[in-house]
């Protein structure tokens, strides 16, 4: 089974909206939007994002480990699209590992 990038984007948006406590018609999320500046996520919110991504996609999607490899400026600059790419990479890597 493969996941198209659109699916991942929708799931990531649903996660972000859930953490922000907003509904789809209230905040439009675009790939280029930064999580902190434009969407207003605080670092503690990443804990909830992390947990929801693992719940939606499985434990191989470990945002905690990913963030640990980034410096603080990269974390601040992280965009919705960047998060989608990370999820897709983690899923692809996991599929490779299974083979």
């Amino acid at each position: 089974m493969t996941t198209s990038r659109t699916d991942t984007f929708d799931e990531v948006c649903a996660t972000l909206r859930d953490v922000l406590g907003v509904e789809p018609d209230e905040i439009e999320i675009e790939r280029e939007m930064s999580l902190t500046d434009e969407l207003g996520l605080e670092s503690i919110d990443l804990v909830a994002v992390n947990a929801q991504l693992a719940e939606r996609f499985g434990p191989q999607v470990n945002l905690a480990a990913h963030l640990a490899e980034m410096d603080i400026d990269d974390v601040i600059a992280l965009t919705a699209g960047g998060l989608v790419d990370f999820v897709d990479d983690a899923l692809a890597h996991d599929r490779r590992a299974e083979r």
Partner: protein
Amino acid sequence: MTLAVDTERVVRLAADTPAELAALLDPGELTSTGEGPCRLGLVAPSKKSLALARKVVTKGRPWRGRGDVWFTPTPLLGGTAFLFPGLEAEFTPAIDDVAAWLAAPVPQLSNASIGRHAASVLAVGRLLDRALRALRIEPDALAGHSVGEWSAMTAGGLIAEPDLDELLRRTNLDELPFPDVDFGVIGCPAAPVATEIAARPGLVMSHQNSTNQTVVCGPPSEVAALLDEFRARGVICQVLPFRSGFHTPLLRPHLAAFEAGVPSLPVRAAVRPVWSATTARPFPSDPDAVRSLAVRHLVEPVRFRDLVLGLYVSGMRMFVQVGAGQLGSLVGDTLRDVEHVAIAANSAHRSGVAQLRRVATAVWVEGGDPAFPDERPSPIVQLSAASDVPKLHDRGDGPGAAVARLEALDSPLGADLARLMAEVADAVTTVLSASASASAQPQPSAARPQTLRVSTRTMPYLLDHCFAPQRPGWPDETDLRPLVPAATIVHHLMAAPGRPAIGVDDVALHRWLVAAPAHDVPVRPRPLDTNRVHVSLGEYADGVVVLGDAHPPAPPAWAPEPDEQAPRISAAQLYSERWMFHGPRFQGVTRSLAIAERGVRAEITVPDAPGALLDAVGQVLGQWLVERQPDRWIAFPARIARIRFHAPPPSPGTRVECAVRIRSLAEETVEADVQVTRDGRPIVSISGWQDHRLASDPRIAGMHRCPELSTVSERQADGSWLAVERWPDLASREFYLHKYLNAPERAGYARCPPRERRAFLLRHIATKDAARSWLWERGAGPLFPAELTVTESGVTGRNGLAVPALYIAVEQHGESAAAFVTKEKQ
């Protein structure tokens, strides 16, 4: 002097109802207008924010700041707390324009050393405190995080500003001695961190910041190892870029240098309540006690989460972060389920004055009357005693109503807060009558961790508490799923301190504690004060055990509910018809006495097994659910707010009466209060017993009661067996999974990618139901699903069950699976 202040338009609209407010938003010239409790504020309105405003006003639910839109249908009534940040990883305050607006000198900021960083944080806090007061935004309570507490003490009047200034002048900020230890921020609650550091003596917990953030402190290599451990579990972690060892015993070798600091200053009378994050209570009034608490602040953990909860129950609803950084997000994390406003008076995203404009807008929308920075600054008045200051907003009802609101919350936080409400009331009383010095307060001492062996060998009675019954003599114990009951967990929590206990508060059951395979669980008692010990049982459960030599006096016994009727199900039927899954050693209910719209009574004959009395209490609540909530009756304890024993626990064989009163009922939870009486006198009082409810319509509940005779799948006209998912939540899915899958199949399920697990389970259910019904039709007796193993083309028997070779075809469509026995193999 020209003020370097930017300007932005603020539009303020007010009306009596959201509909009237929406009318004010009709296209046309937008100007501030209207009166009424329903308010909308827009800073620098744009096409986009106007569109958002129309949406949120139409929906009529509060919207607090995203997209520079603030809206409330009715103002959030309550007090305002000022929260002063401490040192954070990022320190980029925007204050130059604020100083210009106030015509005050711009503070020199630096984070070149810890001492300078701290002094800079204090200076920013003081400037913003002045700015807020110039906007007529005043605190009803003040508190701070870490060194921010010194700002709170100064702003609240406990310390005089000139005294603090003089202290900073004579301190060499670059030469302060600090231990060489790291702070590690961990994105999870305190309990799992406490469990993990129990075995790492070099590490201590320094901050309980919020529901999902905990900080540890210790040697860099040990902190790094712990953070790696948590990251491997998918927990977000970060090492802070400064080392101080503050709020831990690791600072003790250097304590003298810091005792000569803030704790040495003259203590004045506070003009507004200042709260301590060490005790999560207001500072005491006695100066010696204040000084003593200022020393404890240096070496004891920051309990910021408890502080925020305490402020909330004392009536604070608006939390203003008086500084830069992310302190407000800790408030948001802790008060996630209850209405509040958390707003920062400074932000890295915009100029200082622009952010103050947003604070004023937020305060106005919630019914306040602030000035706006585009007006001339109001003359700054010194804070006077709280009673002289008109309240921004006053709900005008007493604590009783507040408790009722909290209790009505459909959230675990509700119980937390209701408990705290009582404690805060106690604390306020204590402060008022305080004469004892804080030095008399007990110092928590390290307690010895213990280990609890959880197995059916050490706890043979658990064989009568199995969630997935199997055929007699079934060899694989893991298929039986023996579980330690919540009540037995409470028993072990109360036993852990090794001293007489009279009750336990705030029991939280985090995970099922399964006894097969056998394993060891760390039991960690941690004294909180002279008579309270926090005890955790690994990551499975925790609670606060209340010690005492004398049992608290019993309240009056409850009168029977006026609408009592005879129960439909007798005590014997509860077990024989398997409404309760308990075996003989947990069958404590011996007579069903009465049932009512919101209550149930039964006789319990105390069984032998540890905790079996309280387990039977849970079964009495269970009977109410069976009779009154037949479409969703299966439930298991999740939290218990308070248990008190008014007498020694009754010995086995004693007959007692149990009365349960339903306090609240929701789709996911039921909450009850309980009295256990002996000879008409209460011997146990329980409040806030909360069960988590699982999906249990009659068909799937049949699988819970008699799995060897029931199917979840339904036979279709074409003879196939159709399994559809009847449980929307993961907890319920896990529950039924154990009824169907045997150990190898569960391992297969665990290996499945999460998105395929649902289909995996449905395929197994349909296949096993098709096979069992085929066998039943040919004279087979009771068959448990675990007795069959699903293969590529059918099923095989497990542990000695002989099954004819069957071909079973399965068709799977998303939410359902249909299985059909095509033919017998030759």
